[in-house]
């Protein structure tokens, strides 16, 4: 299989929101290559006639009634926040738009 390039790893790191140094990216690209080579074996046996399993349990329709249950207090909700202001989570400026 094709080697995974440092640029590809850099793109993955961007998608995963993790800053990585060039050295880290190179190292990771090498490791990924080895791991992906090993795991690519799954393609050998995964025929088109096999259905994928995304759940070990064959259960459907687990739901709850539309009832209001107690929420956390704002203090509890904000208890882990690195920063907060007037009952809201304070975060660094969000640049750009969604």
């Amino acid at each position, binding site marked *: 299989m094709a080697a995974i390039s440092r640029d590809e790893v850099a793109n993955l790191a961007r998608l995963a*929101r993790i800053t990585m140094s060039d050295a880290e990216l190179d190292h990771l690209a090498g490791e990924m290559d080895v791991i992906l080579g090993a795991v690519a074996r799954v393609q050998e046996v995964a025929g088109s006639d096999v259905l994928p399993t995304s759940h070990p349990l064959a259960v*459907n329709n687990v739901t*709850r009634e539309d009832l209001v249950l107690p*929420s*956390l207090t704002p203090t509890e909700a904000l208890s882990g926040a690195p920063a907060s202001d007037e*009952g809201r989570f*304070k975060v660094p400026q*969000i*640049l750009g*738009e969604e």
Partner: protein
Amino acid sequence: MSLNYDQAIATYEPTLGLEVHVELNTKSKMFCGCATEFGAQPNTQTCPVCLGLPGALPVVNKKAIESSILIGLALNCSIAPFSRFARKNYFYPDMPKNFQTSQYDEPICVNGFLDVEVETDDGMKTFRIEIERVHMEEDTGKSLHVGGSTGRIHGAEYSLLDYNRAGIPLVEIVTKIVPNTGKYAPQVARAYVAALRDILRGLKVSDVKMEQGSLRCDVNLSLSKTGSGKLGTRSETKNVNSLRSVERAVTGEVIRQANRLESGERIVQETRHFLEESGETRPGRSKEQAEDYRYFPEPDLVPVVPDAKWIEELKKSLPEKPADRRARLQTAWGVPDKEMAAMVNAELLDTVEETVLLGADPTKARSWWLGEISRVANDKGVLPTELISVKDVAQVIALITIGELTDKLARQVVEGVIAGEGNPTDVINKRGLKVVSDDSRLMKAIEDAIAAQPETAERVRGGNIPAAGALIGAVMKATGGQADAAKVRELLLKHLGQ
């Protein structure tokens, strides 16, 4: 060289696509039991699940599934026998898990349609909007941007997050591409959103207030040279917060794209932001690289397999379609198309119907609500129904019908109710506005008038009917305007042998 809309539309064919997000009115959130009240204090309606705290797990709200199915049925969709949630992965601070639990290739409803009517040069035309899918997902939290020059997102120093809204159920309704609207694209788009809103309101699954964000519309538009047969690149416009904005956004994008194409530039596939003030759109965040959502089936939730019997029951419970109801009322009341449209556009159809159901004559009900009351409401910048109740209007109309009020007097009564003087009876009593219909009192006034203008009376006796006007006027003056002018005329002429 700047093309205007007509010029643009002469050269280019628009192709529309509309994505509408509906916030459901369930009592609790999509995946947890937190309340969904609008306007609560920040972060008072959150829990480990909707805050995305480590270890938290979602459990689906049954009512949300029911509402989604109702929406699909009302839009003539097929309900998927097997449907699954999927994770849409991307990072944004208003999304606690940094993935949205949504649906990807297995949505709950597919392949429906909605017919909308638009007024064209050739009369009312029906456009069929095909629905690609209806699926369930969850809303995000709300961010407040502080600092920076305008408090808008660019240049803010920091942001404050309130997750009360995070996890509220959303239903996304996506149309297939809508071709062949020609120059009516803006109107078709608007009519679609309006019709959709009506249906959702009728289903009672959402309060569909565009201003409050419980109904959100994204407009997709592309242009292609007329007759080329090829589709153009589309833009997506967000932040379209009213029906009027939908129409303007389409118009604006047609103009913008046409001008670009004419000057040889290509259209960039991008998300744009609608600007209320100018009616134009501006680019959103420029993304050098596309976002890859890496959808995969949500492992914390199990598939939704709606029971066929349940779907049948829901189907039976569907309320009358708004279009059908309108047609029924139009026939029952004998209202011409244009007036029907006026009532619908003014959003007074329900109000008029309620007034009629209280016994009022449909024509009168219409003319009062759309006429005098709307006029005052517009002046004051409020809704007509905020000024006066359906009950009061019905009562006034009833009094007119039995002759206890003339139109002129009724206007004063309505004015008094609006001014807060009480209900119609209170106003009539306070202001003494009852029609003087007591014949003997009227006769006295008539005799007085004749006595005061003997020559005029003679002329009337002689066959000069119009001359009676002066005498009628005198009687009206004498009764403080509270006589029924037609009655006075009748009695006067009879008295004078005409």
